[in-house]
């Protein structure tokens, strides 16, 4: 792992049609950070992260990403996955191995062990053969986080992972995110709304609002 920034944005503009969401923004995200992206609704937090992941095109400027040896792992909100799909928790976790397996590859013994380890670590053992649609919101989000972890990505990008969860599920998930950052040194970029929770987990936040995008100390933003 080198010391280069994970993401560098220079004068980046992102627009949906004529609607400019991010206007010539500059941002450098250091490696190994746990960085919540905060700001009002519609300010462009998710748009910024999606542009960095290449999911949304940017109309101007430059985005330089160095995600390390593995592609980054993206964790959407659990409600984005349609529960009608006939996939189990285990199937979804295995999906994280797609970059290694390609179209036809089958899991070898080592990959099976990795999937098993992640399932155990996230407490998903009793649910691993359950249909994804049968799970509670908290377990669904845990499954998606487990899928991200099994990829061995150095960078995790989470889009409002606690949205729609009850208090205990939320606390459990935040604890997992913190553990991933502290024990494995993962860079965690994460869209969030609650400043009290950001203050408990991170030192800095990325503030996204109509004045632009900037890194700020948690204490500064909280006050």
């Amino acid at each position: 792992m080198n010391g280069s920034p994970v993401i560098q944005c220079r004068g980046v503009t992102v627009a949906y049609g004529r609607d400019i969401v991010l206007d010539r923004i500059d941002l450098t995200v250091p490696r190994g950070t746990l960085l919540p992206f905060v700001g009002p609704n519609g300010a462009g937090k998710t748009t910024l992260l999606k542009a960095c992941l290449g999911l949304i095109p940017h109309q101007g400027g430059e985005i330089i990403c160095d995600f390390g040896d593995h592609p980054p792992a993206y964790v959407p909100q659990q409600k984005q996955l349609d529960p009608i799909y006939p996939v189990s928790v285990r199937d979804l976790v295995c999906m994280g191995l797609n970059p290694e397996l390609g179209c036809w590859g089958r899991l070898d013994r080592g990959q099976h062990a990795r999937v098993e380890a992640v399932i155990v670590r996230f407490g998903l053992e009793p649910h691993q053969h359950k249909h994804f649609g049968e799970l509670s919101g908290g377990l669904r989000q845990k499954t998606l986080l487990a899928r991200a972890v099994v990829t061995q990505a150095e960078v995790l990008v989470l889009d409002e992972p606690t949205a729609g969860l009850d208090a205990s599920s939320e606390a459990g998930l935040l604890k997992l995110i913190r553990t991933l950052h502290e024990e494995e040194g993962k860079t965690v970029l994460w869209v969030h709304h609650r400043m009290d929770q950001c203050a408990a987990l991170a030192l800095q936040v990325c503030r996204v609002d109509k004045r632009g995008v900037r890194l700020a100390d948690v204490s500064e933003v909280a006050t």
Partner: protein
Amino acid sequence: MNLIQDAVSFTKLFPEAVLCGTVMAAVCSAFGVFVVLKRIVFISIALSEAATFGLALALVFHFSPLAGSALVTGAVVFLLTLPEKRQHLPKDVVLGTVFLLASSASVLLVAQSGFGLEEIKAMLYGDLIVSSPRDRWVLLLTGVPSLAVLLLFLRPVLYAFLDREAACVMGVRCWFWEGLFFFLLGLVVSGASKSGGALLVFCLLVVVPATALLLARRLWAVIGISMALGVLTTWAGLLTAYRADLPVNPTIIGLSCLLLMSVSLVRAMASRFIARR
């Protein structure tokens, strides 16, 4: 005993109907699993009607029916794969308009052509019983390779449909797999529409896979059950129509719908029973 004798004599009398029905049911029911999962049921009816309009064009202007249906279906598939922001109307409205335009244009075109009522009915509603060896080859050459490609690339297609953004970040070329799926779906619908007609193709793409989704919990099992149910209801429909002297396609459609209703009723009752215990 009578039933078996009837089945044998029907197969001897109408071998092409049995073959075409079997291939069409297996292929459409497999593709339909993704139609139902991706909630693009309306797309499948629009494609079926577009294929029928292509057939009407071919009939009136004397060119290959497959070319006619493939051409019109291909144009609709292209329209559907355009990014939504380039379309100034919601996709549902575009599909609804395609459906209405294709259905009315087919009727108007054929009504002005001087064909008899039976020919018009056979073309618009399809009739498996009059399938020809040529229809069989069209179905085999469009359906079987399409099905093989879908099954071969099931994993990236599933990932692109299930969680598009996460799959793209993982390196799955979602736009390619979605485009390929719609292209193959268009090809399958074009190939099946002449023998099946819009309604039967729509039924096999929607009703049969929906029944399979109620019965199985793993993707491979859902696809397998869907194909099996599609083939069995088609055979049952052919036989029932033969024995009761009924039109074939509506009989197959009716049986498929009855099966879906029965399975969902049993599922609902079972869920209620389990919840009470």
